[in-house]
């Protein structure tokens, strides 16, 4: 009986592993889910792939970024499964674990391997590297890691502060010649191979084959670096990003302060103001579309003083555009991207736009998020890096923006701006009076109301201008009322009451328990 059970178990395991090798079934899965980007021939030339940077993987060369094997070696099956299961964050490759059955995923992995003869070449050794365990990340670990970051010149590509803005960044390309960004190390949630210290360490050991990122294993083998030092480097890189991926909160609260608003982007007052994270995605609705935005998020802080509002926008951007060096990067984009969405390289500035309705809506209706329409326009603040200034105006759809004239002869109210570019990051403060004389065209900020707001960003050096941009959806901005002094006392009372009631409940429960035991 027991033996029969064991036999069944063995047989079913064998059946499962046989099914896992089913490249015919894998072909069906591949055609349905993968070929759109990776192409019927596995060469990464699927119809949708023509719009993507980074490019979809070309399976014919069997060169994979995320591996546990040495640079130059094939990936293990587990490496391939990981990419399929978890996807590649920060790229178009989604996680398939929740969408496809395990059998489907294993079959498609087996099928993908058939695109390259390397996987059937018996002279190829596929051995996962043995990775050590991380040393303590405490003490000077991060500081030491920073020293190695500088001494082994990670900054050449990743930049002095790790935002992917190094002096070689504009000239980086992958094996097929597509332009490629050095990773912004402050956004670990977008790391292709995962954000943990262990995963970062593995990337340092294996390199990301097919990209400019090399392997550092030889340095350890030749004792130029100790394994511990490489771990410290990984710990430093990890320390640049927040512990957890930033969460999106829908409402930006602008607290009211007394006195002058901080209008300098580096004013220390901003360090005490809550910062809100908003992801941005490529504008893919209207032509010319853009699937590969360089600005992937904006952090927003806001304050008001009852008379004016100041908004601080912070975003990572590798370049202070325009920058002639990056024309080469744009030319490389045009060589690989689909024709219908390419435009000639030119010297575009960096830009950011903040969008409001012209009037605060009373109901739930808001103008079309993509810069309104002819009949339902939006009010926008637009800042450019060159000329370095902000203007306000009316947008009536993606391709029509009318600047509101300010100063002599103009009715519009100026939007002041101050900007700083610091090692791959823009910090811009925009400010304006809450109320203006032109309520027909300009939003009148009102305290205590939920004001719809949306954001748009352009990295000029990534060929972004006009409709080639990064967009957000609508969120809200709320100008808080001044905090009455009582507010600070009532929470204390509330806490005391809650604590008292809680203790009462516990005491009662314990009495019952005691009486039950007795």
């Amino acid at each position, binding site marked *: 009986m027991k033996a029969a059970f064991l036999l069944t178990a063995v047989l079913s395991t064998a059946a499962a592993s046989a099914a896992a090798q089913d490249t015919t079934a894998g072909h069906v899965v591949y055609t349905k889910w993968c070929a759109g980007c990776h192409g019927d021939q596995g060469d990464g030339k699927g119809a949708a792939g023509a719009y993507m940077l980074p490019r979809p993987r070309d399976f014919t*060369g069997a060169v994979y970024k995320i591996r546990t094997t040495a640079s*130059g070696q094939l990936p293990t099956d587990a490496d391939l499964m990981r990419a399929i299961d978890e996807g590649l964050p920060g790229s178009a490759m989604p996680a398939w674990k929740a969408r496809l059955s395990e059998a489907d995923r294993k079959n498609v992995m087996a099928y993908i391997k058939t695109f390259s003869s390397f996987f059937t070449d018996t002279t*190829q050794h596929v051995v996962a590297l043995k990775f050590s365990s991380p040393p303590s990340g405490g003490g000077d670990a991060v500081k030491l890691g920073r020293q190695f970051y500088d001494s082994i*010149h990670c900054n050449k590509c990743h930049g002095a502060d790790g935002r992917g803005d190094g002096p070689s960044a504009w000239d980086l390309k992958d094996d097929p010649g597509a332009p490629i960004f050095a990773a912004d190390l402050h956004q670990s949630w977008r790391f292709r191979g995962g954000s943990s210290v262990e995963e970062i360490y593995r990337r340092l050991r294996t390199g990301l*084959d097919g*990209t400019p990122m*090399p*392997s550092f294993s*030889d340095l350890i083998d030749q004792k*130029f670096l100790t394994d511990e030092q490489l771990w410290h480097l990984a710990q430093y890189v990890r320390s640049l990003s927040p512990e957890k991926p930033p969460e999106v909160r829908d409402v930006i609260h602008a607290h009211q302060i007394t006195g002058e608003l901080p209008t300098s982007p580096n004013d220390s007052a901003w360090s005490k103001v809550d910062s809100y994270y908003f992801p941005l995605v490529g504008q893919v609705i209207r032509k010319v579309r853009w699937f590969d935005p360089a600005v992937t998020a904006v952090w927003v802080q806001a304050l008001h003083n009852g008379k004016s509002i100041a908004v601080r926008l912070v975003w990572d951007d590798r370049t202070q555009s325009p920058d002639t060096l990056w024309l080469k990067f744009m030319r490389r984009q045009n060589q690989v991207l689909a024709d219908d969405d390419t435009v000639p390289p030119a010297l575009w500035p960096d830009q950011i736009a903040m969008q409001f309705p012209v009037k605060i809506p009373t109901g739930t209706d808001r103008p079309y998020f993509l810069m309104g329409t002819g009949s339902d326009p939006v009010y926008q603040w637009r800042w450019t890096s060159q000329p370095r200034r902000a203007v306000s105006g009316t947008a009536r759809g993606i391709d029509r923006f009318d600047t509101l004239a300010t100063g002599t002869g103009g009715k519009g109210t100026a939007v002041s701006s101050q900007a700083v570019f610091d090692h791959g990051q823009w910090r811009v403060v925009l400010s304006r009076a809450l109320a203006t004389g032109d309520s027909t065209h300009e939003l009148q900020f009102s305290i205590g109301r939920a004001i719809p707001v949306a954001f748009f960003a352009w990295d000029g050096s990534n060929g972004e201008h006009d409709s080639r941009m990064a967009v957000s959806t609508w969120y809200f901005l709320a100008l808080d009322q001044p905090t009455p002094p009582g507010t600070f006392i009532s929470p204390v009372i509330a806490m005391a009451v809650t604590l008292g009631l809680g203790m009462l409940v516990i005491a009662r429960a314990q009495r019952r328990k005691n009486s039950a035991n007795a």
Partner: protein
Amino acid sequence: MRTLGSVAAVGGAAAGLLVLLAWVPNTTPAPHGSAGATISGKVKLTGKPAASVNPEIDMSEESKCAALYKTTPHEEIVMANANGTLGNVFVYVKSGLAADAKFPTPTTSVTIDQKGCLYHPRVFGIMVNQQLAIKNSDGLLHNIKAMAKKNRPFNISQPTNMTTDRSFTVQEVMLPFECNVHGWMHAFAGVLPHPFYSVTGADGSFSISGLPAGTYTIEAWHEKYGTQTATVTVAATGTKTQDFTFTAK
């Protein structure tokens, strides 16, 4: 024969374009003994390469490398020699050897040196399984990326003075190398299962010796001007001359 005028023209262009300081002559690997036949010749270049063919290199980000050059360094894509010949042409036996012929792997290694933020040599031959010593003489960060298609590609970081050994397992002509820190750095290796190859140097000549009697297809490869082939029949000993001519574009 070339006319004196065009030699002078090409020579003038070459003098302006070449970075002689960085030039290290390529040495042909020693053939097996002195037996066998030799195929030798010159690779000529007709016409005048455009001035833009070897772009200037902006080394301002690497002062240590820049300091090694008295004049602005250029990429060495077209090495137009003063005598009207073309350097950095890889000439090799493409076919004609017996299918079962085996040639021992040399015990000496081939060195590619990263010096002055350029590769030396830029074009070289190496046998299958022969050690390639990848040397960093600059002491600053280079990554060396072998963009192999038939062999496995790799990408190694060398942030200091160091040497890393690698080898290739199958024939691949040509196998490009690049450095991503310095986008102008390119090199090309001809990986062959036999020792019958040569790279033209400053006089444009090549010599392939130790060949068994037979009829061979000889190919001359240049990174910009493409390939040319010739069929050459040799006896058991003696030398046959075979020149190639590329036209500048």
